[in-house]
């Protein structure tokens, strides 16, 4: 063997290390900025918490005018995707506020409704118009506001009106979207007591006189309901009017 291959390889390693390091030393193609500004930028970028001016002053050359540099850097970054901001006398980089929503990637994942939501939805479907208290009564368990909210967000449940009883509780009902999702032409297509029993979906121990309502979805308000006057929610108010109009048409 004439030449030591280890030595040769070692030279290769050496030159790679040099060239790889050089790759990171990008020569400024754009305008070169002053050294102090670069260092300030790097310090603020790498900092794990906002830095106060005093600390910056200690880390920069003695003659550096930190205040002016900060002002310059803040100006450089204003309008960019990242801004230099001052929080309680400390400085830090942060992504531009208006871009924050873009930093969250929203993905949709199919998920099954919770048991509570399913039960609540079912009770609304069968018992509508129904108040929350009535839903709780049927379920025998309290119904969280969130559960009904989920159903409303899904567009399957809606506020119908207010029950003409003390406290004027809101009544809930199902929507057209509900029918569409479950492929029902009409809410009365929901199976009745005997069907459920036959399908084994009702406990056979239920008393003989167990009754369940025939599901109905009266579009118009029932006699027991008042229109909603929830000015709090203008959207809803409009919906309601629209539907009313539709009825008349």
């Amino acid at each position, binding site marked *: 063997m004439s030449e030591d*291959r280890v030595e040769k390889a070692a030279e290769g390693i050496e030159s790679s290390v040099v060239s790889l390091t050089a790759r990171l030393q990008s020569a400024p193609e754009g305008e070169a900025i002053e050294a102090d500004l670069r260092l300030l930028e790097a310090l603020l970028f790498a900092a794990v918490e906002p830095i106060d001016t005093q600390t910056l002053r200690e880390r920069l050359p003695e003659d550096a005018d930190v205040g002016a540099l900060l002002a310059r850097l803040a100006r450089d970054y204003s309008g960019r995707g990242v801004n230099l901001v001052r929080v309680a006398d400390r400085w830090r980089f942060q992504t531009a506020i208006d871009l924050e929503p873009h930093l969250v*990637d929203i*993905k949709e*994942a199919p998920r*099954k409704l919770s048991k509570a939501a399913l039960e609540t939805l079912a009770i609304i*479907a069968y018992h509508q118009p129904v108040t929350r208290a009535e839903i709780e009564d049927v379920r*025998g368990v309290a119904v969280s506001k969130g559960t009904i909210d989920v159903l409303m967000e899904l567009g399957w449940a809606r506020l119908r009106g207010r029950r003409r009883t003390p406290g004027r509780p809101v009544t809930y009902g199902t929507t057209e979207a509900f029918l569409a999702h479950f492929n029902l032409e009409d809410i009365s297509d929901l199976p009745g007591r005997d069907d459920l029993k036959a399908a084994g979906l*009702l406990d056979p121990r239920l008393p003989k006189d167990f009754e369940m309502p025939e599901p109905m979805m009266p579009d118009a308000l029932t006699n027991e309901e008042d229109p909603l006057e929830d000015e709090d929610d203008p959207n809803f108010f409009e919906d309601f009017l629209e539907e009313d109009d539709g009825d008349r048409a």
Partner: protein
Amino acid sequence: MSDDFQENLDFEAADNAAEEGESLVLDIDGYEGPLHLLLELARKQKVDLARISILELAEQYIAFIKTAQDLRIELAADYLVMASWLAYLKSRLIIPKDGPEEQLPEADELAAHLAFRLQRLEAMRRAASGLFRLPQEGQAVFKRGMPEGLRSRTTPLWGAEIFDILEAYGTSRSRSLIKNHKLPRPLVLSLEGARTRLKRAIMGLASDSEDWTSLDSLLPTKNEFEEDIPVSSIKASSLLASLELTKEGHMELRQSGAFTPIFVRGADRKVDKET
């Protein structure tokens, strides 16, 4: 960093230790194995790894092991295996090649193999040191200290089948009607209560009176209770109480026929018995 690898070859220390009569100074642990030791010895030859004399290396290794044994250092078995193998290789290298032993591997090849392994290990050591001379994260370059992070939020796409709803309805109805069926506190006049009341009422009657009093007139009025106790319950409990009291001899009871009013009177006085 590459210097790290060259430490620990402390012959001098070992020699000194031997002179002073101390054992166990030789740092055999400095080498992870025979190959590492051989590599250090080869480096001591101060020639290209490609030109190392395996013969010389074998001698040095064996000498080193011998020193270690003299110092009564516990040597790992693989050091000794390597020593004997090197001794074998040495003898093969010295003995002239011709002869009947042609099937055995050529000594030159074995030596070349050993040289190759030493070179390969050395190359890896150099590579490791090269790697650590690269600009490292957190050493030469720094990542953003306070990254906001790119979040991924999965919004649930809620779904349900009609069956889910029906099942949920069935479960929910069944549960509320069966499991949560609490018996209301029965609205009744307890036997105990009726007894106490009736006894007091009987005592209230004129003790000398032999007159029969209708049981109904002794019954408590509905207003006496906070709750709406049904009259039937009051009647039933009181009748039961009257039977008990009669049996115990505190009162007498009379009814002339089925469904006719029931009459009572105190029995504390001596009276003829009639029933």
